[in-house]
């Protein structure tokens, strides 16, 4: 168990800078998830922490000690790879015991550590098998077991579930939560699946092109994204973005006018916003109501493109010039809409987000609720 501190971490490959001045504090026992689109530097950052990658500039501290130059094995970390990276020629037992053997541990100590890890992960009956004889989920567990036996101060997981099928992913996700509950070790977890991030993290770090976009709890990110990037990245389906201009600034919010002439009231603290500023309204699919001009006060008229039924709910895909990426609304499961049908889509002011031209979010009125949570 340990705290981690990253100060001005920088990484360049010859010409290109892939990590730009990353600062981050991870407290002892925290479960931190790095998310971000592919290529944003999640793996690179993690590999720098592991010691598999040189740090170009900045300080990496574990428990207050600078470890930039320490070899991986000496940092007290353990890593679980996306491909599991099990040693294919060793039994599970040997896979898990390998690190301890190399460290010169005594047989009984090794045995105890391996048995213990195997018990935690419910794989004690498989110890004689080789990785090939296991299912995907079991392999994943062995990879974790190998990390556990080392009794590391920090666990690093690089997209540990991305090779598993959906059902197993859900199961293993729960297992990670349980594991963290049991071990209480600091864990850093890389994923680009935001469901994993939302469900597992104490703290999510959203990365984009080598920059930290926002650090916060899942709920903070979901309900109070700092900018458009985070807002769009967290949540599924993606948040809907509608372009408009400010037409009125009120104490309880801002009135935005779309190019169609329709409006949307947004409950945010207006700050320095001026009438005429270009802004973007963000509304999550589950908050977008579909109706007619009569039933929906604020909103934009759109053309229905498709309705996808998922059983418990349905998604309505619609198009409007105001939203370049289209709109997705979550609607009740048995509601029908024909392709081409015109609907008015809008949301209550409290459910809307607002971003300025630079993509920075306005403070939402409901933010107090979240700070309490």
């Amino acid at each position, binding site marked *: 168990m340990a705290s981690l501190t990253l100060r001005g971490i920088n990484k360049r490959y010859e010409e290109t800078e892939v990590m730009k001045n990353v600062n981050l504090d991870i407290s002892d026992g925290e479960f931190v998830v790095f998310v971000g689109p592919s290529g944003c530097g999640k793996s690179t950052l993690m590999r720098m922490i592991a010691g598999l990658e040189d740090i170009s500039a900045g300080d990496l501290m574990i428990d207050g000690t600078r470890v930039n130059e320490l070899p991986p094995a000496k940092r007290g970390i*353990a890593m679980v790879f996306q491909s599991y*990276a099990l*040693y294919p020629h060793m039994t599970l037992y040997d896979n898990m015991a390998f690190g301890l053997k190399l460290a010169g541990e005594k047989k009984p100590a090794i045995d105890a550590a391996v048995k213990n890890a195997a018990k935690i992960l419910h794989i004690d009956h498989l110890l004689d098998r080789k990785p090939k004889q296991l299912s995907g989920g079991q392999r994943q567990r062995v990879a974790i077991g190998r990390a556990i036996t080392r009794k590391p101060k920090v666990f690093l997981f690089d997209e540990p579930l991305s090779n598993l099928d959906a059902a197993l992913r859900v199961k293993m996700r729960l297992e990670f939560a349980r594991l963290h509950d049991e071990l209480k070790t600091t864990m850093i977890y890389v994923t680009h699946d935001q469901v994993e991030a939302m469900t597992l993290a104490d703290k999510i770090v959203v990365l984009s092109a080598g920059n930290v976009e926002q650090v916060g709890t899942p709920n903070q990110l979901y309900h109070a994204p700092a900018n458009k990037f985070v807002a769009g990245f967290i949540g599924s389906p993606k948040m809907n973005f509608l372009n408009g201009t400010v037409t009125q600034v009120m104490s309880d919010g801002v009135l935005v006018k779309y190019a169609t002439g329709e409006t949307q009231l947004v409950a945010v603290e207006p700050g320095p916003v001026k009438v005429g500023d270009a802004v973007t309204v963000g509304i999550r699919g589950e908050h977008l109501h579909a109706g007619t001009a009569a039933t929906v006060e604020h909103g934009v008229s759109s053309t229905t493109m498709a309705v996808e039924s998922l059983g418990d709910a349905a998604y309505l895909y619609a198009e409007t010039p105001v939203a370049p990426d289209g709109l997705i609304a979550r609607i009740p499961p048995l509601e029908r809409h024909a392709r081409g049908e015109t609907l008015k889509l809008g949301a209550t002011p409290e459910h809307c987000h607002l971003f300025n031209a630079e993509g920075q979010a306005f403070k939402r009125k409901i933010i107090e609720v979240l700070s309490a949570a």
Partner: protein
Amino acid sequence: MSHPVTATPSVPVLDTVKRAIPGIFAWFFAILLFFPIFWMTITAFKTEQQAYASSLFFTPTLESFREVLARSNYFGFALNSVLISLGVTVICLLLAVPCAYAMAFFPTKKTQKVLLWMLSTKMMPSVGVLVPIYLLWKNTGLLDTVTGLIIVYTLINLPIAVWMAFTYFNEVPRDILEAGRIDGATTWQEIIYLLMPMSLPGLASTGLLLVILSWNEAFWSINLSSSNAAPLTVFIASYSSPEGLFWAKLSAASLLAVAPILIVGWLSQKQLVRGLTFGAVK
């Protein structure tokens, strides 16, 4: 409804015949290619008189084997062959594995050139450099020693071994080595505990190829060995054109020289079929 019924019975028959054709061709070529070896084998069991008769029907005799074994110390030659092949294989692998490891996992811009250069040393014609090597070996006391031959063969075959190992290592996932590094493995531990066991099939087929190549190498063995270190190629050199009727004896001697490696090759052919890719299969 009824039209297909009349056609149905003929279709499977035609089909079976059609399907059998490639197999028949394959067998035809297999037998054709094997025939010389088959012929050598049965000639070895003939008498000299019968050997010229080109007949398949005869009473097998071990006469030629008896003569060959009485005439030269077959087991001495065979022992040298075994020692040399194994020695070459072991040393070659010991040298090639670290080299290929470094090339595969820590490549530089020069790696490709170095590899090609290594291969190009193999194109050096042995005949042209025999005398320099002979003199070197004489002066260092390596003439007619198993060690001397092992050194030559090792150097001749090293490029092939490096290349093969290199292509196998290229297929090993980097992740696993990194996992080892996090587990605290040093470079050597990485090679010995992780890399070698994982590329075992590839290394085995490299080893096999090395055994085969050194077993069959004739030029250097004949020139650099005389009595103490002579392998089976030298044994064969004393049969290549003796006086008089000799085909049965020649066949017997040839069979004795070829059989061990043929059997080893056959037993390990699965390994060879899988492993002899030189990176051609991705």
